[in-house]
Each structure stands twice: as structure tokens, then as C-alpha cells.
């Protein structure tokens, strides 16, 4: 799993223009004030990213909530659903 590539994809998809991949820690929370401050639309866009780039469908909202917690959690999910 190329985690740097995943971070770049996230930055592009969510227009996080003021961030570089190295600014995003693998296990830092993506949502909420302590993390990257992503919101509900970002979460939906991450779901599209997973389907578009990795062929993974994440349509169950409660499951998505558990997967989209950090870059590492997303990478692990991609890895285990290849």
C-alpha cells in the first residue's frame, strides 16, 4: 500500500491546497477540530475516491464512519479489501 500516494489523492480530491502529504500524519484523525477538520461532504468525496481509485464500494454509512478515521485506517481497509 503506497500511503504517500493515498495522501496525495486525498489532498487532490478534497482540495486541501495548503497541505503537503508530509503534513498529514498516518494516524491523525481526519475529522473534528483536532484533525484535518474535514466535514460530511469530504467524507462522501473520500467514498468516491475509494471507488474510483481502488474499486472499493463503501455504501454503508456506519461502516464508512469506522473506515474514514485516519489515513492509516483507510490504507488498512484498502489493503484488506483488495
Amino acid at each position, binding site marked *: 500500500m503506497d500511503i504517500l500516494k493515498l495522501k496525495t489523492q486525498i489532498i487532490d480530491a*478534497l*482540495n*486541501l*491546497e*495548503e497541505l503537503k502529504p508530509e503534513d498529514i500524519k498516518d494516524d491523525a484523525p481526519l475529522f473534528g477540530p483536532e484533525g484535518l*477538520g474535514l*466535514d*460530511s*461532504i*469530504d467524507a*462522501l*468525496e473520500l467514498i*468516491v475516491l475509494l*471507488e*474510483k481509485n481502488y474499486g472499493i*464500494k463503501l*455504501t454503508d*454509512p456506519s461502516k464508512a464512519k469506522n473506515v474514514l478515521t485516519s489515513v492509516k485506517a483507510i490504507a488498512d481497509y484498502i489493503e484488506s479489501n483488495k
Partner: protein
Amino acid sequence: MIQIVADNIISGLGRDTGENLRALREGRISLKENAGFRVPGDGKVFLSVMDDSFIEPSVHEEDMTRLEMFMVSSVKRACGRISHLLGDSSTIFVFSTAKGNVRYLAEDERKVPLWHSAKVVSGYFGNPNDPVTVSTACTSGVTAIVVAKRLLEAGLYKTAVVVGADEITEFVVSGFSSLMALSDELCRPFDIMRHGLNLGEAAGCLVLRRADSKEDMLNQDGYFKTPQLVASGAMASDAFHISGPSKTGEGLYRAVMKTLSLPYGTKAETCLGEAFINPHGTATLYNDQMESVAFSRIGLDDLPMIPLKGYFGHTLGASGVIETILCCHFLDEGWIPGAAGYLEPGCFPSPNISSEPQAVSASWFLKTNSGFGGSNAAIKVEKLGDSFPENGSRSGKIDIRTIKSFNLEYTGDVKEYLASLYRDSGLSYPKFHKMDLLCKAGVLAADSLLEVTEGNSDTALVFVNSVSSLAADREYLSSIAEDDFFPSPSVFVYTLPNIVTGEISIRHKLFGECVFFVEEELNRERALDYVRCLFREGSVSRVLFCWDESLDGRCSLRADLIGMEKNGKLRV
């Protein structure tokens, strides 16, 4: 005083208001499973579709689109008795639509501008005035009624023909689906099992007329038993999120409080009399819960509430118009239908909703819309009482003055240009980069003209352009290409032009009035007439008035912060 003088509804339930009312009386719904649309996840969708046979045979014109033919049909059926008013210079057409002819985006973009449909329809009836087009997402319908009422009260016109219409397209279905807002079952407003909305299409026409005395009221035998008036109305912003409703129902609370002339922080008293409420009631988890909170804060949770989208779905720009019309007839006939799809309370505090029809002896009703951009709109419609209501000083002269201006004219790489302005301004607002060009330019204007955090409700936002959200529309269209179908929720949100007023409201904590007009060319005088209407109502002290358009390598923004003058001095 604004009298309701004519109406028509075309929906999946029927070709006129009578057919729609009959269907509601019989408990029929028009939502059906439809396999004809691609949606992410290959899920099921339920839609309510207008039958093409509902178009008047006489309006099948080659250069008119399907939606325009429905609009014309609706106006024709509404205005049979008063058709002589349609071509008169004292009559204004006010349109409400979220996406208009977006169906033609790939095929013939010239048909797509919302003003284009408006001109086709008002032109069909020979009306000499530039039509007004309101596009504020799901609040367009009620907002258009409020705008029409204000234009009439200001004495600018005598009659307003409000037309609300939207149709079902792959664009809209895939977009709402990408936002996970659609239910794969029949929608269930306010029910514990609700998990999304159903889309519907409809066209509606509501005709309003200013009466300056009881004698001046239009004689309308057989229309309503007691004449009905649009008594009041207001818009307010959540200042919370561009797609998710405020958890405290802040904008809806404020819009309704203003509509009922109640001071902020108070609660409605029972002395308001017998009434019912028609909420927005989309059947998404968050919208219905937000409304329950707002109506409870206002103290209206005891009033009978009738959500209608379980019958014909969420008809977007038509919804505020057709649901208002239905409520006028419920008010006249003294009953409300049961809420389709509602079995068990699913919101807290629980509103007073019944799945069974009931008799109501109401003298007024409240209709609300809430939508993307954090926009909210409310109107109060009442039966004419014994005394003729005072018009107040709604037509007095208002002097306005531009306090500050901010203009941008640029040809080239607009995205990079706006990004460089953002960098130069020293702002730190990372959300800026997520916005479409319309929002970026608008936010830069607001940052230049308003204090960063205002936190008030007396600054109104009045935005205008000619292309609506066309740049975002094109970008979204490319995400739903035949062989590359990944509808982008973050792009779809920006295909509603009023998101710009939402973004500004969030950034500056503005809870006030917002509107977005679409016109072929800026009719500055009329737009300023509308600005004067806002000052005249008394709750607005400043207006950010902005022409905001970015398309095809050109950015054109003209923003004025406008205040009201009193005795030659700026009123603060």
C-alpha cells in the same frame, strides 16, 4: 395586502390542483420505483414523474423544452379567468427553479440559463417585463413567493405570477444520490425509519395580486370561500454548513420568528389561534430533526403539522409553490391529509403529525422551506378577517447609499487569479480552496466589505448573475460521463448558485436574509428596488449587493455594501 387569486399544480398526481387534491383525499401517491437512472451503488430510487400528457395540447411548440411546456401549461390553467392580466405591464412573472433546463447541458447549453426559460414562458404570454428568477436551491419556492409579495407591496407591480418548476434528470438524481440523500424505499418524513428523500418533478403557478382596499380585491367566485392573503414571509440563514442543516434549527427558527413578528428568544403564544404547519419535511435524517427542534423552540410543536413529500417527493424549486397551493386549499376546505409514509414518531421533540386525515378549523397556516446553503424561508397565509389589514408604510420612499464597493474584472486563469488575491489578502481560511469560482469571488468581496466575524441578522445578501452555477454544472457533468461515472458530491453541492450566500453567511456568521437572482443582464434599478424592499421591512440595516459571475476565463464581480439614509445621514 397581497391576495391569492389563482393557482395550478401539475405533478405526478395530476394535471391540475383539483386532481392533486383528489389524489391526496384518496391517499394516492405518485412515487414509483424507477430503474431508468444510474446511481452510485446501483441502488433503487423512487421518483414521481409528470406524465407528458399533462402538457396542454396547444403549447406543444418546437422551440420550447419539456419543462417550459409544463410551466406554460401550469400558467394557462391557473389563469383561465384572469388571462387578460398576463400581458399587462403591471404584471411580473417570478420564477422559482433549482436546475431548470439542466437536461440540455451537454447538448445545447444555450437553453440552460434559468433566465432563458423565464423569458420563454413570460414571452409566451406577451408580458413586457423582464421576469424575476429566484434560485436558492430547495428554498426557491417560498423565497419566490416572499420576493413577489415584496415587489407588489412596494407598488412596483399589481400582479405577480409565481411559477415554480423543476424536472427529474440524471444530473439531479445522481447528485442527490452522491450526497447519500436518497432513500431506496418510499420516503417517510418525520418517521423513525426515514432514511432519505425521494425526488419528484412538478410545475406550479400561484398568482398574487395587491389589493389596496377591500373593494379592490379581485372578485373570485368559486375560488376560495374566504379570500386568502400572503400575510408575511421572511428568509434567514443557518450560518452553519453548506449542505447539512443547523442542529439548533437556527435559520428556520429565525425565518419563522420574523414571519410571525415575534422577537428573537421569545416563544409563540397560543393566542396565535388555530393554524397548521406545512414543514419542508424531506425525510432525510437531519432535515426533519432540525425542523422538529426549530418548531419546538418557536413553541409551535402543538400545531397540526402536515409534511407532503411522502405523496409526490421533493420537487425542488416547485416544492415551495405547489405545497403552498395545496395548503391554501386545505385551509379553505378545513382539512389536512394524513402524512404519507408516517407511522411512528422519529424526531425529538416530536411534532404533532398524524398519518390519518383530520378536520382543521384553521384561520392561517405556515409554510417553510429549508435547503442547501443553509437557507430557510417561511410564509404565513391567512384567511381575510373582518378588518382589512393595514399595508403599513411599505411603499414609502427609501434612500439608499453605497458605503463601500469591491470590483473585479479579469480575463485569464480565473482560478489562479482568485487564489493570488486570497494569498495577497493574508486570509487564513483553507475552505476557500474547496469552493467553486462563484463562491471564491463572493467570499473575497464579503471579506473586503464586511468585518470578518459579524454575527448579526441585519446584513442581507442579494446576489445576481446570468449563468447561475454553470461552471460548476459543467464540472459536475464531467463526473457523470457515460464511461467514467463517479458523481462528485463536493462538486454537486456547488451546482446550486446560492451556496455563495451560504459560504459568506458561515464565514461571517450572518443569520440574515439571502437571495440569488438569475437575470440575462443586470437590471440594476430593479435589483435596488428589491434592496429598498428589504430596508423598508425594517429588519435589515445593510445589504451586500453583488453581481458575481465567473465563466470561460472571465471573472466579473461588482459588489456594493449598501446602507439606508435618513435625513441625509447613513442609518446605522
